[in-house]
C-alpha cells in the first residue's frame, strides 16, 4: 500500500527529478561538510594547545587551517542553501501539478460521486491536504533523507573501528528506537483519528457558514452551537493525544542518546583497562555516536511532519483514483439536426430506486418538447441522461442516428445549450460569465445575447457595464442571475436547447419577452423545456406528461386537454386560481 503510494507520488515527482536529485546531492554535500567543520575547527584548537608545549605559536599553520575552514564554511552554506532551494522549487511545482491534476480530475469523475459526497470534504482534499503534503515534502523529506544517509555512514564507520562497541551502541539505540516506535504507533492512530475529526469539524463549519442566513432566521444558533461544541470537544481531546505523542518523541530520543553514551563509556572503560582498546578510539566513537543520535532525532522530527503528509497524500490519491466517466465514443455526428430518440430507457440513481421505468420517445428535428409532471417525477433526470451525466441501466438514447455512448462526450455537449434549474455564476465579470467557454465571441454577438436575454438594462446600470465583476456581495438578484445564464446559453447557440426551469425566478413579463427570443432562436432547432408555468409550454409541439417514472400522456396542448387526463388536471390547477 505504502510502496504503491510512493510510486504514485513518483509519477508527479518525475517531471522535476532534476531539481530533486540536485537538491538531494547538494544538500548531502552541505550536510557532510557540516560534519567536517567541527573537526577542522578542532584542528585550530589543537594548534593553539600545541603552542603551550612548543612555546611558539604557529600562526602560519593556523592561518592555513582557518582559511581552509572558511572556504568549507562558505561552500557548505552555498550548497545547503541551493540544495534547499532546489527541493523547494521541485516540491512546490510538483504540488502545483498535483493541484492541477485534482482540478482536472473533477471534470472526469462520475456524477454520482458529487451526489453523495460533501463539497467541503472534496475542497479540503484539493487545498488543505495539498498544503500538508507540500509542507511534508518541501522541507522535511530532504532532512530525513540526509539524516538517514549520515546515520548509515556513521554506523558503517563505527563497525570498521570497533565491532563490539558498535554492536553495544546499536543494541542500545535499537532498544530506544523500539520504545519510540511503540509510542509513535500509538501516536499515529491518534493522529489519524484527529485528522478524521478535523475533517468532520471543517465539514460542519463549511455547512454552517454557507447556511448562515437560515440558521439566523430559525434561531438555530443554539442548536448548531451545541453540535459544534460536541464535535469541538472530541477534536480537542484527540488533538491533545496526538500532540502529546508527537512532542515526547524528541526528549525521548535525547534520553536514548545519553543512555547510549553511558553504555559506550562504561564498556570502553572496561575494555581500555583490559588493554583491548585505545583511548583515541573512544574519542572518535563518542563523536560518531553523537552524530548518529542527533540525526536520529532529526529523522524522528521529520517523520512527525511526514506522517500526516502521507495521510494527506493518501486522500489525494484516493480522489485521483476515483472511477471516471467512460468516454470511449469515437463516432461523430456529421449532421447535427437535433433528432433525439429515447429507446426503452430505464434508470435509477441508486440501486433498487428506479426513477425512469421504460421511457421511449422520438423527437424529430426542430420540435419543441415540453416535459411536465409533478415534483420528483423524473423530469430533470431525463435531461441528465440526455447529457450523459449518468449511465443508463438499460435502453439507449440516440442523437442524430448515433447512440450517445458512441459520441465523444465533449462533442455530445457541443450539441446542447442548456440552462439548469440551479443557476451557476462565478466570481468574474458579467462578460466572462456570459461568454464562458464559447469561442470567437465579438462584442456584437455578446450585445445581441445580452439584449435578447433581457439584461441590457441591468448591464447598463452596472458601474463598469459588462465588465462589472459578479461577486457574493454584488446585488444581482437570483432572477438576474438566471437571465445571465440564459444569455450564456443563447450565445452558445447549439443545435439542441435545454431549459430546465430556466425562468422560474424571472418575472412573467420578462419571461415572456425572453420566451419570444428563445422561440425565435430555436426555430429549426430542437428544444426541451421543463417548466411549471403552463404559458411556457403551451405552444410546444409535443408535451410529455411524466408521473412516477413513466410517460402517462403524450400529445400537444389541445389533444391533452381534450383527453381530460392528468395534464388537464394540472392545467386546471393553474387556471383555477388565475
Amino acid at each position, binding site marked *: 500500500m505504502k510502496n504503491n503510494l510512493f510510486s504514485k507520488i513518483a509519477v508527479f515527482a518525475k517531471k522535476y527529478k532534476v531539481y530533486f536529485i540536485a537538491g538531494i546531492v547538494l544538500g548531502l554535500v552541505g550536510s557532510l561538510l557540516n560534519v567536517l567543520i567541527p573537526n577542522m575547527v578542532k584542528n585550530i584548537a589543537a594548534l593553539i594547545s600545541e603552542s603551550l608545549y612548543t612555546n611558539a605559536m604557529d600562526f602560519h599553520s593556523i592561518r592555513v587551517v582557518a582559511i581552509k575552514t572558511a572556504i568549507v564554511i562558505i561552500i557548505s552554506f552555498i550548497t545547503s*542553501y541551493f540544495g534547499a532551494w532546489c527541493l523547494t522549487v521541485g516540491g512546490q511545482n510538483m504540488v502545483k501539478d498535483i493541484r492541477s491534476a485534482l482540478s482536472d480530475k473533477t471534470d472526469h469523475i462520475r456524477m454520482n460521486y458529487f451526489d453523495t459526497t460533501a463539497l467541503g470534504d472534496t475542497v479540503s482534499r484539493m487545498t488543505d491536504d495539498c498544503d500538508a503534503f507540500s509542507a511534508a515534502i*518541501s522541507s522535511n523529506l530532504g532532512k530525513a533523507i540526509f539524516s538517514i544517509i549520515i546515520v548509515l555512514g556513521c554506523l558503517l564507520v563505527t563497525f570498521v573501528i570497533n565491532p563490539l562497541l558498535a554492536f553495544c551502541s546499536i543494541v542500545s539505540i535499537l532498544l530506544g528506537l523500539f520504545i519510540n516506535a511503540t509510542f509513535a504507533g500509538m501516536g499515529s492512530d491518534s493522529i489519524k483519528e484527529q485528522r478524521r475529526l478535523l475533517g468532520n469539524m471543517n465539514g460542519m463549519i463549511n455547512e454552517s*457558514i454557507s447556511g*448562515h442566513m437560515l440558521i439566523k432566521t430559525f*434561531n438555530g444558533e443554539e442548536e448548531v452551537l451545541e453540535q459544534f461544541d460536541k464535535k469541538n470537544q472530541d477534536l480537542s481531546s484527540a488533538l491533545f493525544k496526538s500532540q502529546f505523542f508527537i512532542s515526547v518523541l524528541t526528549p525521548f530520543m535525547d534520553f536514548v542518546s545519553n543512555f547510549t553514551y553511558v553504555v559506550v563509556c562504561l564498556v570502553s572503560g572496561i575494555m581500555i583497562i583490559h588493554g583491548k582498546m585505545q583511548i583515541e578510539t573512544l574519542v572518535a566513537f563518542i563523536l560518531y555516536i553523537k552524530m548518529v543520535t542527533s540525526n536520529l532525532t532529526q529523522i524522528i522530527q521529520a517523520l512527525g511532519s511526514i506522517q500526516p503528509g502521507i495521510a494527506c497524500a493518501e486522500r489525494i490519491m484516493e480522489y485521483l483514483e476515483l472511477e471516471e466517466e467512460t468516454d470511449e465514443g469515437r463516432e461523430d455526428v456529421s449532421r447535427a439536426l437535433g433528432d433525439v430518440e429515447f429507446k426503452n430507457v430505464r434508470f435509477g440513481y441508486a440501486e433498487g430506486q428506479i426513477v425512469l421505468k421504460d421511457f421511449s420517445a422520438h423527437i424529430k428535428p426542430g420540435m419543441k418538447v415540453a416535459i411536465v409532471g409533478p*415534483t420528483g417525477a423524473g423530469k430533470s433526470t431525463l435531461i441528465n441522461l440526455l447529457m450523459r451525466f449518468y449511465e443508463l441501466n438499460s435502453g439507449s438514447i440516440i442523437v442524430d442516428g448515433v447512440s450517445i455512448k458512441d459520441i465523444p462526450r465533449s462533442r455530445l455537449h457541443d450539441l446542447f445549450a442548456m440552462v439548469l434549474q440551479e443557476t451557476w455564476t462565478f466570481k468574474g465579470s458579467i462578460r466572462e460569465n456570459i461568454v464562458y467557454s*464559447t469561442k470567437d465571441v465579438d462584442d456584437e454577438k455578446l450585445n445581441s445575447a445580452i439584449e435578447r436575454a433581457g439584461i441590457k438594462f441591468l448591464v447598463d446600470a452596472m458601474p463598469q457595464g459588462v465588465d462589472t465583476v459578479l461577486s457574493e456581495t454584488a446585488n444581482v438578484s437570483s432572477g438576474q442571475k438566471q437571465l445571465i*445564464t440564459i444569455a450564456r446559453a443563447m450565445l452558445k447557440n447549439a443545435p439542441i436547447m435545454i431549459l430546465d426551469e430556466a425562468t422560474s425566478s424571472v418575472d412573467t413579463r420578462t419571461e415572456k419577452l425572453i420566451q419570444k427570443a428563445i422561440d425565435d432562436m430555436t426555430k429549426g432547432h430542437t428544444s426541451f423545456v421543463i417548466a411549471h408555468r403552463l404559458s411556457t409550454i403551451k405552444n410546444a409541439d409535443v408535451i410529455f406528461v411524466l408521473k412516477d417514472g413513466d410517460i402517462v400522456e403524450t400529445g400537444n396542448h389541445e389533444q391533452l386537454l381534450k383527453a381530460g387526463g392528468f395534464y388537464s388536471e394540472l392545467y386546471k390547477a393553474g387556471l383555477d386560481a388565475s
Partner: protein
Amino acid sequence: MKKIAGLLSFKEYMYMLICVFLIVGQVFFEIKIPNVMGELTDLIYSGNVDVFKQISYGITMFTYAAASLVFSFLVAFLVAKVGAALDSKVRKATFTKIMDFSLKEVGDFGTSSLIARCTADIYQIQTFFVNGFQLLIKSPVMIIWVTVQISSVNVYYRSATITAVAILVAVLSAVAILVLPIVNKAQYAKDELIRIDREHLDGIRVVHAYNGYEKQKERFEEANERITSLLLRYDKSSALFAPFSNMVMYSLTVIIYIIGAHIVADSDESLRAGVSNEMIVFVSMLSMLISSCIYLILVMVLLPSACVSFKRIAQVLNKKIEIIDPEKAAAKDPGIHGSLEFRNVSFMYPGSREYAIKDISFKMEKGETVAIVGGTGSGKTTLINLIPRLYEVAEGQILVDGVDIKKMKLKELRNILGYVPQKSFLFAGTIVSNISFGDNGKLKQTLEEIVKAARLGKADEFIRTKQGGYDAVVEEGGSNFSGGQKQRLTISRAICRDPEIFIFDDSFSALDYKTDKTVREGLRQTLSGTSILMVAQRISTIKSADKILVLDNGKMVGMGTHDELMTSCDVYREIVLSQTDTEATG
C-alpha cells in the same frame, strides 16, 4: 491579540507558568549532563582504572538524563493540554462570532474566506503554539544563563560574539519582515483558490454542458500559478535561515580561535594554559548560545504565517456586528399577533450608490395574506430580508406586532417569523433534524408535530417512500433530494416553527401548480390565524391575496387587491396579461 489571549482561562495560564518552571529545570539538567559527561570522559582519558567510580558517574548521568526526560514529558503534557484548549477555544469563539454576524458582515468577508479563517487559520495558530511555545521559553533561558556565564571573559571575545549575534539577528529578522507580506498575500491567494474549487464543484454540470473545462482550467491555473509563486518566494527566503545561522556560528568560532591564538601568544608564559582553557570553555558556551539563537530564529520562520492567521482571526473577532439586540427591548403588546408594517422604508446595499428599495409603506394584519410581485431585480427579496433583520433598514421603520424591529430582541423577532428562502438549503442530518431545525421559543417539536408540518408542506408522501422514512439521511447540501423535494422540506420546516407570520420568498417556484395550490390551501385552512407575506411570480398563486404590492425598480407602484390593481396599475396588468392571455385562450 488581546481578545485571543483573553480566551484562555486561569488554569491554562497556570499550566503555562508551571511549564516555564519545568523548562528552567530541564535546562539545568541539560547543562549538567555535558559536565558529567566531560568528567566521565576525562576519567577514562586519564587511564583511571576505578570501575566503581566510572559506574557512579554513569549512574549520575543516567539519573540526570532520566530527570530531564520526566521534565520533558511533563512539559509535553502541559503544552499539549494548553494547545488543545487554545485550539478549541479560538475555534469556538470564531465560530460563535460568525454565527452572530448579519448578512452584511458575512458579505464583507466572503463565505469562503470565513470558512478558511475558521479552519486553516486556526490550525496554523495551534501548530505555532505547540511548536513554538517551548522554544520561546527555553531559548531565552539558555541565552540568559550562558550570557551570565561568559560576561566575565575578555572584551575581544565579547565584542566578536555580540557582532556575530547582531549580524545573525539583523539578517534573519530582515528576512522574516520581508517574508511577512508574502505570507499575507499567500493566505489570500489560498482563499481565492478555495473559492475557485468550490465554484467548480458547485457548477460541475454546467462545466460539462458547456465543455467549460478549458475556461475552468484557465481560471484555476491562474490562481494556482499565483499561490505557487508566492509560496516559492516564501520558501526560498526562509530556506536561508538554517544555513545562514550555521555559517555565522562556525565563522564566529574560527574568529574566536584566531583572536585566542593572538591572546595566548601575547600573554605571559605562566598564564598561557589558563588563557587557552578560558578560550576553550568560551567556545563550548558559544555553541550553546548560538544554538539557542538558532532555535529562537526557527520560531521566527513559523512566526509570519502564524501572525497573519492571528490577524485574520482577530479581524473576525473584532468585527463590529451592526445588527444586535437593543439595549432595552420594548415590551410587546401580548394582544397583537401576526401584524407587520413598513413605514417609508428605504435600503441601499453596502458599497452601492443606488437604493435597492425606496420609500415602501404597507400594512399587514393578523391572518392576512400579502403578496409581492414585480420584475426581476425589483427588490422583492431585499424587502423580505429586511424583516428578520438580516440587513438593517437605512431609513424608515419596520414594525412587527406593533413594535419597531430594531427595538425587539432578535430571537423574539425571529420566533414570530417562519421564513422560506428562495434557494432551498438543507443541513446534513436526518429529515427530522431538518424539519425541526432551530428554536421557536417553545418546546422542541414532537414527531407528531413534525409529521403534521410535513403533511401540510406536502412532503409527507415522498418522505415515506425514502429508506428510513423520517429518519432518512440528508447529505450535506441535501444532494440526495430533487429540487422540488428540497423546497417542500424547507416549507415544512417553516410550518413546523408554528410562526405568527410566514415569509415565502418565491418558495413555490419548483412546485407544480397542483402542489403549489394544495400547500397554500392547506395553510389557509389549518392555520387561518397566521399571516402570510409572499413573493411569487405566478398570478394564480397571488390572486387570492388580501393585498398585493407591485414593485418596480425598488419603488412601490401599486397596492391593492387583484381586481383593484387590474384597473389601477399598469405594471400589474402587464404582469397578469403576460400570464393569462395565452392561458385563457386554452
